[in-house]
């Protein structure tokens, strides 16, 4: 990996972390564990389309680890890792079929995968299957949040392409 790419990935991790930390300041709207916007997913979706899977994984896991350290919520780390991994695998597979102008759908699919991962860990931690009752609520919020972050990514990509042409 050349220095330029490493720098890019470092910057992207940094960006994702900042978004993540800012998002922590947004209060929970609904009292359902795990419901959030997931704005940092914008960076992940961008990486999935513009970088190789290994590089995206490095960015994603550095962000999850550092994010958990910065927020001081190490319990949430396992949910993030499980959700993040499932989301990442799902998006890497689906990106081969979904063109860039339908990025929003990739983001939704990723969000739903993330929710399934979260609930799976919650079931393991609680040693109880009853938390699956929360999955449909998470899926609805995941669809909405995924659509939002996906559209954001699409706009970012469009603008980035334009600036690249100019420079």
């Amino acid at each position: 990996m050349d220095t330029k790419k490493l720098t890019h990935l470092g910057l992207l991790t940094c960006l994702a972390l900042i978004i993540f930390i800012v998002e922590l300041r947004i209060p929970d709207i609904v009292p359902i564990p795990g419901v959030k916007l997931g704005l940092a997913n914008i960076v992940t979706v961008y990486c999935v389309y513009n970088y190789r899977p290994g590089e995206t994984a490095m960015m994603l896991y550095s962000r999850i680890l550092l994010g958990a350290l910065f927020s001081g919520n190490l319990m949430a780390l396992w949910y993030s890792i499980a959700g993040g991994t499932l989301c990442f695998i799902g998006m890497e597979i689906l990106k081969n079929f979904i063109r860039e102008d339908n990025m929003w759908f990739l983001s939704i699919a990723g969000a739903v995968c993330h929710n399934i991962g979260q609930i799976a860990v919650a079931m393991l931690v609680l040693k109880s299957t009853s938390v699956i009752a929360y999955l449909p609520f998470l899926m609805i919020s995941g669809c909405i949040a995924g659509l939002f972050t996906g559209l954001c990514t699409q706009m970012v990509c469009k603008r980035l392409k334009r600036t690249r042409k100019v420079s």
Partner: protein
Amino acid sequence: MRARTVYIVITAVILIGAAVWCAYVMKPKSGKTVVISQDGKVLYHIDLDSEKDKTIDVEYDGRKNIIEIKGGRIHMKSADCPDHICIDTGWLEDGKPIVCLPNRLVIEYEDGDIDGTAR
């Protein structure tokens, strides 16, 4: 353009499916037996109809949850976990359990009406 239609349909199907599932979960439960379990082990079986108003303290790893039963209803009164989601969930009303993830505590209605009809 065709692909986009397919994606919109898939999203709609997921949303509708989830909504139906939500409605199913939120259906009020007929049974009145509540199970409080921690770390996969059942701590209490409580019949809300006959139970007097009281509070139950549950400890986990040095952290404490206080569950309150009042007027045939149950909720989490206080918890010293960081997020307080279990308290915000409010009273237990439907199939949506009260969950305290950090303290591994679950409060839910017992499945099925076998218990209710037998009594």
